[in-house]
């Protein structure tokens, strides 16, 4: 048929009115009918029970193929044959066998005649299918998860060979194969660090690698077979992706093997005591971008350290600034409890009450300001010219004194001191702290022991000095 229209036989391409298609679908209904009987919870809880059913079916099939010497007369004969092969079994009693024969008869798997039980061709095909399914599953589960995907990919390739090449569609086997390889490579990438941490992983990685290499051959073969096929244009991208993925998978698995080998070899080298610095730099740079070669990157080195070959290196990974949660003191906790217990939710909307405080501005009249200014000016003058002693003298002399008296008394007759006092008096007068007045009567006798004289007929010395309140 395949040669007739050059197309694969596929249910998805048949017309829905075709009677062959109807028969094919009916086959599946018959399969489902029998399987339905095995789908209750009992079977799920103890899956071995299903195996026993398959055993019975297997006996029937062997009989149908003429492998057994005796004719199968009835269900009793079937039961005894089961007991003969597998021994007494509580889970497969005579009643169970009888029930099974009834179900198989109902869905046309077998034919019951007075002379014996015969398996029909439908039964044979469907049973073959079931046994293949179970064996496939078993093989699948016997692999670990990476090799599982690889196994499945290989299986896809083989099925594609067995079906597609013979003109019967096996489904999208090629896409499925590529997808499985992708999955395996992805898992391998994730697991690489674990493999490095495991001392005995080498054989497993080697197994993966050889599976990958097998698969690469198979895959390119398959892809070549499909390239002439009319749908292959749409699949071109997929092929590209598949080839890329498998080559990446091989590189990774090979890299992992090389890393493990390098690590193992390292254990057998002599201990050296020279370190060549330039090798360190080139190594860091080399491992930064290259996951495939034999040199492990920092994470992979940490994985090797997990093997704990040197004492304590597994726990000596890296030092990190620690992050600790803030400690809660007893007060914090009490405060928190108090808040929870006594919390009152705001019922009404919060009304903002503006609170404005007015303050009388400080006010000064012009005169006051002038007085303040003068005061500060006077203070500044006093900084430069000492006047305290003069003020003190005037205070003891009752507020006024004759200038020459003052100068002599304060300055103790010394020329320099007199000059300074004169300056002080001048400052006081100019700042209106004192004023000159007419000559007053001398209160004391002038002592003549001084090293200076007033100039001849100078009237200034005879003036009086009087303290004065600055006007305010």
């Amino acid at each position, binding site marked *: 048929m395949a040669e007739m229209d050059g197309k694969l036989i596929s249910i998805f391409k048949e017309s829905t009115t075709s009677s062959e298609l109807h028969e094919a679908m009916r086959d599946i209904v018959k399969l489902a009918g029998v399987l339905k009987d095995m789908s209750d919870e009992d079977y799920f809880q103890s899956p071995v029970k299903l195996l026993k059913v398959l055993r019975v079916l297997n006996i029937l099939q062997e009989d149908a193929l003429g492998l057994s010497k005796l004719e199968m007369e009835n269900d009793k004969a079937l039961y005894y044959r089961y007991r003969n092969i597998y021994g007494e079994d509580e889970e497969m009693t005579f009643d169970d066998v009888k029930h099974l024969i009834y179900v198989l008869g109902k869905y046309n798997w077998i034919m019951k005649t007075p002379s014996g039980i015969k398996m029909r061709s439908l039964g044979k095909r469907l049973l073959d299918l079931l046994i293949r399914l179970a064996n496939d599953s078993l093989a699948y589960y016997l692999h670990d998860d990476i090799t599982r995907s690889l196994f499945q990919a290989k299986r896809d390739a083989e099925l594609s060979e067995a079906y597609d090449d013979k003109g019967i569609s096996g489904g999208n086997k090629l896409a499925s194969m590529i997808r499985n390889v992708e999955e395996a490579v992805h898992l391998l990438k994730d697991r690489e660090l674990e493999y490095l941490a495991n001392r005995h992983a080498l054989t497993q990685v080697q197994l993966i690698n050889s599976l990958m290499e097998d698969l690469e051959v198979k895959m390119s073969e398959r892809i070549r077979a499909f390239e002439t096929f009319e749908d292959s244009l749409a699949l071109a991208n997929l092929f590209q992706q598949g080839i890329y993925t498998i080559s990446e998978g091989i590189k990774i698995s090979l890299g992992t093997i090389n890393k493990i080998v390098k690590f193992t070899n390292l254990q057998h080298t002599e201990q050296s005591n020279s370190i060549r610095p330039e090798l360190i730099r080139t190594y860091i740079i080399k491992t930064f971008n290259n996951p495939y070669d034999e040199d492990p990157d920092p994470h992979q080195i940490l994985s090797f350290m997990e093997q704990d070959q040197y004492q*304590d290196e597994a726990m000596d990974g890296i030092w990190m600034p*620690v992050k600790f949660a803030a400690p809660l003191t007893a007060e914090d906790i009490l405060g928190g409890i108090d808040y929870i217990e006594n919390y009152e939710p705001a019922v009404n909307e919060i009304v903002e009450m503006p609170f404005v405080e007015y303050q009388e501005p400080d006010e000064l009249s012009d005169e006051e300001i002038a007085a303040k200014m003068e005061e500060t000016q006077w203070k500044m003058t006093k900084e430069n010219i000492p006047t305290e002693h003069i003020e003190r003298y005037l205070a003891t002399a009752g507020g006024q004194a004759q200038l020459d008296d003052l100068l002599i008394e304060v300055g103790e007759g010394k020329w320099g001191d007199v000059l300074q006092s004169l300056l002080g008096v001048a400052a006081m007068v100019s700042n209106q702290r004192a004023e000159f007045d007419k000559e007053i009567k001398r209160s004391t006798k002038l002592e003549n022991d001084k090293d200076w004289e007033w100039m001849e007929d100078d009237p200034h010395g005879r003036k009086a000095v009087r303290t004065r309140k600055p006007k305010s």
Partner: protein
Amino acid sequence: MEEKQFEQENQKVNPLAALALLPSFLSKEEELTFMNILFSSSARVRRDNFGLSRKEVEKQLGIEKNEKEFHLFISRVNQAISRYFQLIYDENRDQVVVLMRVNARGARGVLPKEAMAILMYIFYEQEVLQHPYTLFSQMLEAFGHESFQANRKLQSNIDILMKIGALEPFSSNSTEEAYRLTAIGKHMFSDSFLRRFTEFTQSTQLNMEDVLKFYKRYNLEGRLDYDSLET
């Protein structure tokens, strides 16, 4: 090393029992100060200011500008907890910080491998070759030759390292971007890691003493004093 073995025998039951031993090594003030440093070393608590300043530590210990007492405190704490924690003082940044040891399995998840490679590069440049700083352009040239968007990749990994306080920008007069290792960065690689790493680079087995000598890991402040143990 003797110290370590002693610890090991004592703490087989519970690793954190080391902390329970602290009171026998430290005075009350020292213990409290250590707890405070432990708390404040958290990167999350204060964004870019890890640990406590030396002045703060001295205040809490009740000592003042006493070089000897301060370093004695650090080495005493380290003797008690060296198997799990490490107290270090960063003179440049004036910080006393606690580092915690992460085991090899956990360490893989702490930093991306690119960040580790970058840190290793800077560590090598500044600790072994004693360069004062490492230029961004220099790293870009070393690491960026093969990958797409190398600039951004490099930058984001440097950011990670800055966040945990292992690097700081080096301020200089030139406009070139440059980084310097902090005390945290100096102490991050464990001795075992450095040994393994160097073994791989040299393709030969190496003695721990030689490796540590190569990376100038002798007599670092606050660490076990190897020399004194030898005599």
